[in-house]
């Protein structure tokens, strides 16, 4: 690019050797602050005072009921977040947590409606079958990736849309009557038990167990070590005798299993019947959660807490000030985009230099 004074502008990007503390600690702050500012602009654009809206958003979750609703929302987000997190540690992107959620929800509904088992056994059968079907579905992208190197991102993404549509078909199959947009209602026996007089259900126990299991898997087992090895350098891992099939199919199977459990929880714990779009963007939120929490299973927990608070808070803001609920997805997308931008700034530095042009003699004389 040439400046009017004849100087040449040179823009170069180079890897930052040693990020300064200002950059390291400033970026998370910058991410949160700028996302909230962006959200504030959107909120004031519909004629609501953003400060009031934010105060409502974050204080509404401080009540007993609000906090319990946050936990309820954390159940699918944590499970789906872990479902993306485990393959991510192996360097694989599972964009299909949504597919697993729908597969699990459909399976749990079918087992709950048509299988008769005594007492808690039915709930366990619903969970196990939902997890297995979710996992089995993810073997498809796993096998295709391991065998023919077919991009798992595209296959998991395509599976998500396939399952969203197929859910509509499953509803018709298990529907109570013509024209009703839901399946038959689960019996009280098939519904997950709820605790403390809130909507917190059996899925919370499952999610906590899954969190511990994933933590132990990644930190205490040989398989977890192999996953990390494969994720940091697949070629070196292969040469040290780690099976590509085992890692790729295994991690995606675990991802499908966890998201299948999330789907079972949403249906048997909250909806009590199969409904369309019962996973409103959980699969995509899970990507954001896994990206922020990618350094450890417990970071995934905190990331899912953050997004659950935003979800529940925004639902209240919509109720009180009729700010459209889409504000959640706006904030979510912007948080991730600023997070990625921050990562870029942390890793690279931009140099803009203006250099006097040598062939332009008059400029050289002036300089």
């Amino acid at each position: 690019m040439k400046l009017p004074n004849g100087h040449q502008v040179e823009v170069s990007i180079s890897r930052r050797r040693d990020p300064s503390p200002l950059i390291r600690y400033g970026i998370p702050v910058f991410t949160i602050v700028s996302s909230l500012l962006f959200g504030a602009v959107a909120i004031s654009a519909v004629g609501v005072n953003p400060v009031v809206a934010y105060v409502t958003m974050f204080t509404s979750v401080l009540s007993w009921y609000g906090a319990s609703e946050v936990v309820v929302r954390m159940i699918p987000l944590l499970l789906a977040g872990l479902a993306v997190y485990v393959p991510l540690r192996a360097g694989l992107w599972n964009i299909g947590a949504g597919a697993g959620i729908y597969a699990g929800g459909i399976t749990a509904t079918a087992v709950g409606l048509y299988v008769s088992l005594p007492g808690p056994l039915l709930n366990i059968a619903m969970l196990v079958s939902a997890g297995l079907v979710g996992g089995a579905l993810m073997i498809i992208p796993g096998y295709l990736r391991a065998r023919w190197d077919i991009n798992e991102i595209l296959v998991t993404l395509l599976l998500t849309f396939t399952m969203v549509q197929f859910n509509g078909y499953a509803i018709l199959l298990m529907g109570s009557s013509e024209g009703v947009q839901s399946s038959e209602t689960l019996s009280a026996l098939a519904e997950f038990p709820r605790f403390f007089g809130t909507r917190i259900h059996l899925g919370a126990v499952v999610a906590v167990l899954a969190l511990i299991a994933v933590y132990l898997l990644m930190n205490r087992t040989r398989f977890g070590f192999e996953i990390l090895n494969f994720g940091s350098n697949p070629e070196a891992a292969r040469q040290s005798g780690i099976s590509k099939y085992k890692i790729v199919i295994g991690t995606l199977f675990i991802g499908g299993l966890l998201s299948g459990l999330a789907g079972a929880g949403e249906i048997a714990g909250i909806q009590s019947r199969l409904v369309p779009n019962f996973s409103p963007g959980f699969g995509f939120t899970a990507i954001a959660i896994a990206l922020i929490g990618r350094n450890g299973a417990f970071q995934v927990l905190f990331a899912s807490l953050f997004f659950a608070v935003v979800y529940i808070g925004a639902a209240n803001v919509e109720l009180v000030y009729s700010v459209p609920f889409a504000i959640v997805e706006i904030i979510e997308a912007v948080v991730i985009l600023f997070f990625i931008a921050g990562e870029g700034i942390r890793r690279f530095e931009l140099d803009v230099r203006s250099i006097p042009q040598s062939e332009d003699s008059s400029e050289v004389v002036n300089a």
Partner: protein
Amino acid sequence: MTGAIESIIGLAIPAATPLLLGSVGALISERSGVLNLGVEGIMAVGALMAFITAGVTGSPWLGFLVALLSGMVFASILAIFSVSLKSNQVITGVMLSLLGVSLTTYFGRPWTGKSVATFDSYTVPIIGQYLVELPFLGQGLMQSTPIDYLAIVVIPVVWYFLFRTDIGMEITAVGDDPETADTMSINVTRTRYLCVLLSGLFAGAAGAAVSISFAELWTSNLINNRGWIAVALVIVSQWDPVRAVGGAYLFGLIYAMQFRAQSVDFASFLPMASDIGPVYDFVFHPVIMSTYPFVITIAVLVLTTRTTRKELSAPQALAKQYMREGE
């Protein structure tokens, strides 16, 4: 029966237009090595901007123009992130889609249910008045909106641009092997920026094609996964704009069939349909048909990739960030 086929084809052609424009956009960007998963979001932005502009000014052409520009502006986010900040293209694209859909849902609410100036259907001059009588295809081909014609006319231009111009060759070089392209003093960054912005232009046009040419309305879920189908179409067409035409009209046909499934009995076209009752009911169920674009794409991925990666027509450097040595 002729009437049924005509009604399906008459719907398939305009339904294919946004898919075609969107997939050509995604294709240009992917040929330079940048995976654009933001098409769904860019289409949503283009659709709403076109709708609002057409509503305020009363001119659908102005709406179309604004959709092109806003598509480019929105796509520039992807360019800045994926090319300059070298971010993960998958995450950036998915988040851009989420942002575009949620922003338009959020700000589009006052426009839901409004009616604005949209594109009218025209009969092709001179030959149109005769060819419109053609059985099956006549109505759909000869009586469409300007955007439907534009989508078809622009394909040879894109083909020429990608395969017969120097810039097109540079795009392919950058998409296949950015290191070598760089040593041959092709500006990788500039080429990729150009392609991402062009893809925004096409995705914006695709959005306008939905809101002010095909559906002629605005709702929060207007794009309804058309952007993702467009991304899938790039794979089905194997990164070739001419094949994208065939793919787009195939997917348009599937859309029209599922839309018309209530009123048309497909069994009357198939002699053996009565023998395979349950299978027929499943295969031609409108909900099952809506999964076909995605299932077909997975099948195409498997069939074309089962060989080694070298023989693939996919750009070799697709979704990989380019960094110079020492960066």
